[in-house]
């Protein structure tokens, strides 16, 4: 698991819990980082190390994603998906 940069990031640290997981398809991701920039909860950050393409794909920052799916919409490459964990109701 690659380390996340800027752990002490400023911004709303709303606790989204672990309801949503963010999956990044590295075959499609071009490393534009628009998802990181547009995420309203700073739930994404650049990975510490580059992947084999030389890109720094985004990784999930724990406990922050609220499932707004802005990243899914702003990604030009269909590379990021929000998966909602099943709830026990």
């Amino acid at each position, binding site marked *: 698991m690659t380390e996340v940069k800027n752990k002490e990031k400023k911004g709303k640290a709303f606790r989204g819990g672990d309801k949503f997981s963010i999956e990044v398809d590295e075959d499609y991701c071009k490393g534009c980082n628009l998802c990181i*920039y547009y995420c309203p909860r700073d739930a994404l950050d650049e990975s510490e190390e580059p992947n084999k393409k030389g890109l720094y794909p985004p990784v999930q920052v724990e406990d922050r994603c609220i499932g707004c799916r802005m990243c899914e919409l702003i*990604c030009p490459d269909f590379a990021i998906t929000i998966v909602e964990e099943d709830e026990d109701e």
Partner: protein
Amino acid sequence: MDEKKEERNTQEMREKYLRKDMMPTIFCTGCGIGNVLNYTLRAIEKQGLDMDKTVILSGIGCSSRLPGYVDVDSLHTTHGRALAFATGVKITNPELNVIVFTGDGDCMGIGGNHFIHAARRNIDMTVIAVNNFIYGMTGGQVAPTTPEGDYATTAPFGNIEPAFDMSSMAISSGASYVARWTVTKPSQPINSIAEALENKGFSFVEMLSPCTTAYARQNKVGSLREFWNWYDKKTILTEDYEMLKKYGDPEEIEKLYENIQTGVLHKEEKECLSDRLKRLIEEVQV
């Protein structure tokens, strides 16, 4: 909240709509054309279009590569001529949903003539024109939409020609639905393209989109974030524009003229050509 649960996530959208063998797209990092595809597919999903009865056409250019990524009957035509091909398709089989992806050079340059006539005829189709102010595919030559003063490979001293306003052209030509949005705010184009698909007539949606290579390297756009931000600073919703013109102070009004208006710029109910042709045939058929 319920609505969101029904929406497909990206993985599901990929499964349903994309030609996996063609992915990933050829678009450059940070290019907005991929977003145009994303928003169009979500609008299609919203409208529940039958993909077996849908045809997507395009001309030549970066945006014209879009049909290749969608699992649907596709016609990747010659430069500027997509609207004429689309006319033939729609008139022949009005049951088909016709969508055209085009670009500013493809539609407003070489395709200008077909554009104004397809709009004039109000043919029932949805045209999504990606406007990145440049001929991107061929390396960054000046386009009919390049802002005056901007740099391009064939305008190395700055563009000395005025630029076309594609949406105005569509309106004056007779299009029944005309809207302009940027790729930077997803919901607006998604909802608008859904409306455009719904409209029975010539729907024109102009998408302002950043070209992060051919255009960007010649004009000082800053970082990718700054370039995407610029689109928000440069545009203003048409309703806000009208309000400020009426109620703003002189300084605000002065600044308005530098802005590009976005939003639904024209909307009317108007008989489309297929319906008119149908009436004619009913009248004269033996």
